[in-house]
């Protein structure tokens, strides 16, 4: 194994161990309650970057995939009282299938047309859920948390750890894609789709793959939100804020490397959490917008563009 790989895996293990110890020794639940949201945005942003960053297809339908994750969980709880693991797994499968469907229907569109199609998708799914009584309809649905599993002493702490696991999974997947020829192919088709196709890159297949993986991870990241809030309604599960936040986090972090969305999500989600506590939950949208504008003007390649002096790294990181 290369040195960078060893460091990466060691980092992942240390991160999970640290999270686990926190859940065992910290009494106060609030850090977990806030931290969960930050980790959730890391998952969403990393997942978004696979399609939006590597392939350059800007998905405005993050909220559609997120909401599908939430409501898959709701449905499974209502119908089968399924466990959290099952909720997440099935949500990933449903999200992946949705990604495949969206990809087949829309990936022949480029640029803004693709983005508009993804917004339409979110509206269609939200409307469907709003009119589906079994999962609560427009009024939403209350959910009862099952007893927490050992060795955790509170459900929120457990969810925090689960979301940390999802962070690691999302990053491992994104890193694998980035370092494999899939990543190179996505990169090529982002720069020039026709040239990529004529150089042997199966562009449609790669785009579909990116759509499926990105969708599966976003839905998986959304699934635990049902149990986190113990409540789900279409308005919040399909809130366009998810799309805007995730887009801003990824772009502010930088989309050419998996570390970009991680940094962007940590920076912005933490700021949002602090603002929500100290000022108001409305102000954080304003701050998000201002930061996005500043970054687009001053650092179009995001934080990682600012950090790396050389414009392009030659080697696969």
């Amino acid at each position, binding site marked *: 194994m290369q040195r960078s790989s060893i460091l990466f895996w060691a980092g992942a293990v240390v991160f999970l161990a640290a999270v686990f110890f926190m859940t065992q020794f910290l009494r106060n639940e609030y850090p977990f309650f806030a931290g969960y949201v930050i980790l959730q945005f890391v998952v969403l942003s990393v997942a978004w970057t696979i399609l939006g960053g590597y392939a350059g297809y800007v998905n405005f339908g993050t909220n559609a995939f997120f909401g599908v994750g939430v409501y898959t969980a709701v449905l499974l709880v209502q119908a089968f009282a399924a466990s959290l693991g099952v909720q997440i797994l099935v949500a990933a499968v449903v999200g992946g299938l949705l990604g495949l469907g969206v990809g087949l229907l829309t990936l022949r569109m480029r640029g803004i047309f693709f983005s508009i199609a993804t917004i339409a998708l979110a509206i269609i799914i939200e409307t469907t859920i709003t009119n589906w009584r079994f999962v609560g309809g427009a009024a939403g649905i209350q959910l009862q948390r099952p007893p927490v599993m050992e060795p955790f002493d509170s459900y929120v702490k457990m969810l925090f750890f689960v979301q940390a696991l999802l962070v690691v999974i999302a990053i491992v997947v994104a890193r694998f894609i980035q370092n494999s*020829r899939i990543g*190179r*192919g996505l*990169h*090529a088709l*982002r*720069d*020039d789709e*026709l*040239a*990529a*196709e*004529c*150089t*042997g*890159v*199966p*562009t*449609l297949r790669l785009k579909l793959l990116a759509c499926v993986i990105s969708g599966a991870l976003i839905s998986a990241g959304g699934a635990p939100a049902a149990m986190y809030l113990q409540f789900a309604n279409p308005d919040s599960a399909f809130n366009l804020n998810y799309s805007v936040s995730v887009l801003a986090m990824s772009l502010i972090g930088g989309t*050419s490397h998996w570390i970009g969305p991680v940094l962007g999500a940590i920076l912005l989600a933490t700021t949002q959490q602090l603002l929500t506590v100290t000022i108001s939950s409305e102000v954080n949208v304003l701050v998000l917008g201002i930061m996005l504008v500043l970054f687009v003007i001053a650092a179009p390649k995001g934080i990682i563009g600012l950090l790396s002096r050389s*414009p*392009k790294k*030659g080697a*696969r990181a």
Partner: protein
Amino acid sequence: MTAVSDAPLLRIDTLNKTFGGFVALDNINVEIRKGERFGLIGPNGSGKTTLVNCISGALRPNKGAVLFAGEDITLLSANKRSHRGIARSFQIPRPFRSMTVLENLMVALDFAAHRHLLETEAHQRDAAMSVLTRIGLAPKALVSTATLTQVELRKMELARAMATGPKLLISDEAMAGLSTSEVDEVLDLLMSLGGEDIAIIMIEHIMQAVMRFSERVMCLDAGKIIAIGAPGEVMANPRVQEAYLGT
């Protein structure tokens, strides 16, 4: 010669392509042999690039067939055609702009048909470097394509096309806008590739280059073949002169 080597590498069979009411290609029939150096000329808008697009898979014809090495590839996607050995450069260079020259070639090697021969990244790098050395771009390998000059971009496109390991290379006006010495440079390059059993279709407006390069020349006008044969004959053809000079 055996019967096998006589079989055409590429066969265009009554190809038609229309854009709305405009007939861009009108019943084109032509065969190209393995390793042949084939010049394609014609005034602007005569259908040269449309024909190239139909061969490389960027466009689907309305009627007719494209056969490559005996296989009907009319409905195949461009990437599958690339795997079978058709490569092209573009009239206006289309590099992968966020990558270095070397990385541009690595895309080709990553997805080319003979990828299994290049197990490791180091092998790939060597293969890419040897193509670049040959084309004279080795010193620029680690440079971003965004900083290349026109002639370097065109060479990079040829290098990227070569890296896919083609049997047929289509060069779409690789020399347009280059100085005389640069034209000679690119021409020598194409000539040397032709010596390796790679068939080359060269679209060009620079007549000396076409004359020097081609074993056979085809002239298109308004989507029709108006002349095909040895370069001298085609140039002497009154219809060709009329199409070009408008007399």
